[in-house]
Structures are given as structure tokens and as C-alpha cells.
């Protein structure tokens, strides 16, 4: 039968060599630049190794990296800093993103321009955002110190980057400014998919603006918003450039997240075995956290 040997799209369940062939280049590339390096770092995390070289004889298997890791105060401090940062930044990003999305979802002239402007920080590279905020929070001539002093909120110039709490606050500020537009963009897309009829019906029933927000908008937006929040959390969890360029993890490790700690040990102290262990733990926490938060729906949302 000639027709059965022909490729048929009418029956999508049909396995076909072409499907494999088309997938092959991607699988090869992913294996080469993602899976293989990942296995290398897993392997490194079980060796007591400084700077590895391929083809070098493998160091003996050891769990000393993990033992040292879980016993070190630095690691638990990094966990705590990461946790604080993730919670604060995700919460405020969501709030600001949702508020701006609701604002520009109103019907008014020029709203497409307003939408463009409201999410503009998304297009500013992280490193540039750091430059801007480092200058605004400059300890001698920064705008923020001038503002705080002239408003009488502070009686002296704050040295933002040598005070642990102040530095943490600046990191939060940059990340919120960089992160809220993503929530705004996603929430706006979600808002536009809510049927107008819901609002008409609610108006007929006499619901005020606040009731419409609480009983229609927010529940309809929840699925999109939930996923968006998880993506923001993952971003904060893994981010490197903002913190590294802004504070380098200091002062006194007050802004040292797990990502920064990984990098410091790998390329500051050249203890790559130990650093890989930190990185592997970070990855495992990321995967577990996101699975717990979005569960089985994970596939449908990305």
C-alpha cells in the first residue's frame, strides 16, 4: 500500500523519520552546550578541584564540597538573603506591575503610548539600570541623599553602599524597577482577554469599581499573575549582573545571594568544585520551588 508509507499530517500521532530528523540538530546542540556542561559541573561538585581542565585526570570522588557547604554560615546567610530578596522584589514587582497594567488598561486617548512608556524599563539592559541607580544613590552627590536631606527625612548623607541594610534596599529598588514591566506586560495581556460581558453583567447588578476589581478582574487574572510571579521569582533567584555590578555581594555579604556566592567561589577564589556544589544546590532549589508553586500545569504556561 503506497498511501500508508506516505507522511500524513491528518494523523498527527504518526511517528515519522522526518520528525526525528528535524529535531536532531537541536538535540545535538543542546546536548553539547547545555547537557554536557551540566554533567561536568555535577561531576565537579563531587571533586575537590580548583580550576579544572578537560582531559585532566579526574580527582577522587568526594562529598566534601557538600559537607562544607551545609556546614558553612556563608551558605545559610546567602540562602536567607536570597529568600528575603525573592519575597520583597516579587511582591513589590507584582503590585507595581498590576497597578500600572490596570491604569493603562483604561480607555483613553494616547493609551498605546502610555503602555509603551509604562513598560520601558524592560528594555533597559540590567547593567545600564545599575549605572543609573548607582548614580542616584551616590553617597556624595546622589539625588536620593539630597532628596532625603532636604525633605528632612535624614539628617546626614547616607553612605548607601557601605551600610548593609541600605545596600540591600538599593538592590531591591533596582530589581523592582527592572522587574515590574514584565508583570505589567503579562497582566495587560491577561486583562485584555477578560470578556467585556463580565463587566456589563456586573454593572447591571450594581457592582461598583472596587467590587468589579475584586470579584471579576483579580480572579480572572489569577492564573496569568501566578505564573508571572513564579517567573519573576526565578529571575530574582538566578540574577547575577544587577547585584554583582552594583554591590559585588557586599557590604559584609549583605547582598550575597546564592548566585553571587557561586560566582565568587568559582572566579574569585577559583574553587570550582565547591562553587559547582553551590550552583547545583541553587538549581535544585529553583526546580523544586517552581514545581511546588505551579505544579503540573508547568507545561501549559511557558
Amino acid at each position: 500500500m503506497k498511501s500508508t508509507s506516505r507522511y500524513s499530517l491528518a494523523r498527527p500521532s504518526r511517528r515519522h523519520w522526518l520528525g526525528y530528523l528535524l529535531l536532531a540538530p537541536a538535540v545535538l546542540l543542546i546536548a553539547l552546550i547545555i547537557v554536557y556542561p551540566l554533567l561536568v559541573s555535577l561531576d565537579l561538585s563531587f571533586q575537590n578541584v580548583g580550576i579544572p581542565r578537560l582531559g585532566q585526570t579526574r580527582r577522587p570522588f568526594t562529598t566534601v564540597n557538600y559537607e562544607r557547604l551545609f556546614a558553612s554560615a556563608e551558605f545559610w546567610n546567602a540562602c536567607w538573603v536570597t529568600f528575603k530578596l525573592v519575597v520583597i522584589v516579587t511582591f513589590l514587582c507584582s503590585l507595581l506591575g498590576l497597578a500600572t497594567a490596570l491604569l493603562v488598561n483604561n480607555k483613553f486617548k494616547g493609551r498605546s503610548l502610555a503602555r509603551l512608556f509604562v513598560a520601558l524599563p524592560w528594555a533597559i539592559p540590567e547593567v545600564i539600570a545599575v549605572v543609573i541607580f548607582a548614580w542616584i544613590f551616590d553617597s556624595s552627590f546622589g539625588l536620593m541623599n539630597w532628596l532625603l536631606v532636604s525633605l528632612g527625612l535624614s539628617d546626614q548623607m547616607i553612605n548607601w553602599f557601605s551600610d548593609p541594610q541600605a545596600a540591600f534596599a538599593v538592590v531591591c529598588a533596582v530589581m523592582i524597577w527592572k522587574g515590574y514591566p514584565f508583570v505589567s506586560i503579562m497582566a495587560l495581556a491577561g486583562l485584555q482577554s477578560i470578556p467585556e460581558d463580565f463587566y456589563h453583567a456586573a454593572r447591571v447588578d450594581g457592582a461598583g469599581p472596587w467590587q468589579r476589581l475584586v470579584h471579576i478582574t483579580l480572579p480572572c487574572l489569577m492564573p496569568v499573575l501566578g505564573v508571572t510571579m513564579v517567573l519573576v521569582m526565578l529571575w530574582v533567584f538566578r540574577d547575577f549582573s544587577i547585584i554583582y555590578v552594583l554591590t559585588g555581594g557586599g557590604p559584609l555579604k549583605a547582598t550575597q545571594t546564592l548566585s553571587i556566592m557561586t560566582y565568587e567561589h568559582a572566579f574569585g577564589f577559583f574553587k570550582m568544585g565547591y562553587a559547582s556544589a553551590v550552583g547545583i544546590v541553587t538549581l535544585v532549589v529553583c526546580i523544586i520551588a517552581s514545581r511546588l508553586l505551579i505544579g503540573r500545569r508547568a507545561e501549559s504556561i511557558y
Partner: protein
Amino acid sequence: MKARRIDRVLLYGTVVLTCAMLLFPVYWLFITAISPPDTLRSFPPRLWPEIAQWQTFATVTGQRPIGLWLWNSTIAALGAVAISMAVSVFAGYSLSRFRVRGGNSLGLFILTAKMLPATLLVIPLFGIFRSVDMIGSLWSIILAHSTLIVPFTTWMLKGYFDTIPRELEQAAMVDGCSPLGALFRVILPVATPGLAATALYGFVLSWSDYAYARTFLTNAQTNWTANLGITTMKGEYITDWNEISAASILVALPIIVIYLFLERYLVGGLTAGAEK
């Protein structure tokens, strides 16, 4: 009627005020770049300089090879996007149209790959590139950025292909097209907006990277990307805010322009998954 008008005014007022506050940092970057250096070191700060000093841009491009940095960033981004698109167009199509053994687990793996911290992957990649003597070359960055881009582009393109009805290919094949011919002559032309959005998104991902550039290129000044170059202008104690602001504007401008004119495509890519 009057209440209506007050509502309008309030709404416009809120919108303008919100935009002004949120975009103030960008405005301040611009003002800092064109202010004379001595006004930056005086209180109160001037929200608008009396004399705009445009030559800061000329000075900074004369002192730092910003053109070269931008060129390197562009080459790295184009290279990474080209590699990523070349493999993920086919992979996305395959995942969308065929049922392949292991296809589901591959999809799941790609999702997980998006969660990989760059700080973890950078360690083995450093070891690998060192062994093959690629540290310091733009190829290291192109490959490293592909690790960021491929998972995104494959998944995004699968999403786009899912929205294109199968009847299109079927019609083409009834007319005598081979399966590959149908992909190239029918599906890809229809998917052009999707392809553009995906490529653009990949470009932005690559352009924004700092971690890989910092690790692989620090000792190769002629290959510095724009982001890496900018951070070398930021001193631990003393920074010339005038010049770093001007340089930052030049570096941020390409992405801002892309965003302002092609926002629809970028946002389309971002939210493709959200509306399901």
C-alpha cells in the same frame, strides 16, 4: 457630565504622573550625560542644565572604543540568534507537528533548561572553553548565549507553529509539495511575524548578558561587549558619571529603539504562553 470630565482629568493626571515617576531614572541618565561636570558635583541638583553639554558624547566615544563594543555585542547577538534559530525552527516545528518518541521529555527538559542559573553553567563552560583555547574569543560568547536563547526560541516557535492550522500543509502536499517543501514554502512564510518576534527576543537576551562576557572576555579588551565595557567605566570609589551616562545611553539606545518600534513583536513573544 461634569463628574465624567473630572474622572478624565484625574485619569490623565495619574497616567502622566506614573509615567513621569517610573521613567525618571531614564530621564536622569540623559540629564547627567549632558550636564557640565561641575554641576553634577554641586547641590541642589539641576533637573535641567542651563547649558547642555553635548560634547560629552564626542569625548566619551573618543576615549573609549564604544563603537567597537557595540559592534562586538552585535556580532555576538547575531551569531547566537543565527545558531539558535537555525536549530529551533526545525525543532519547534517537529515538536508542534510530529509525535516523536521522547518529544515530551525533550520539551520538559527545555523548560527546565530555562531555569538554569547562568552562574552554574558558566563554570563548566569556562573549563571547556579553556581546554579548546576559546576563552577571549567571541565564539565563546556566541555559544554561551546560545544556551540562553535555544530553550526560549524552541519553545516560542513551537507555540507559533501550534497556532498555524495543519490544513495549510495538507493543502500544499496535496498540490505535490514534499513535507520539507511545505515547511519552507508555506509554513515559514506564514510564520514570519513569529520568527521575527522570536529572533528579536533572542537578540535582546544576548545583548543584555553580562555574566558570560565578564567571565570569558575580561582579558580580551578588543572583544569586549557593550555591557562589559560599561562596567569597566564604573570605578569602586570614583566614577566619571558624566561619561558613563553618555556611554550608557549609546549602549541602551539600540534596544530602546527596537522596543519602541517593534514592541508588538517583543510583547507577542513574551505573552504567547500567557493567554492560553
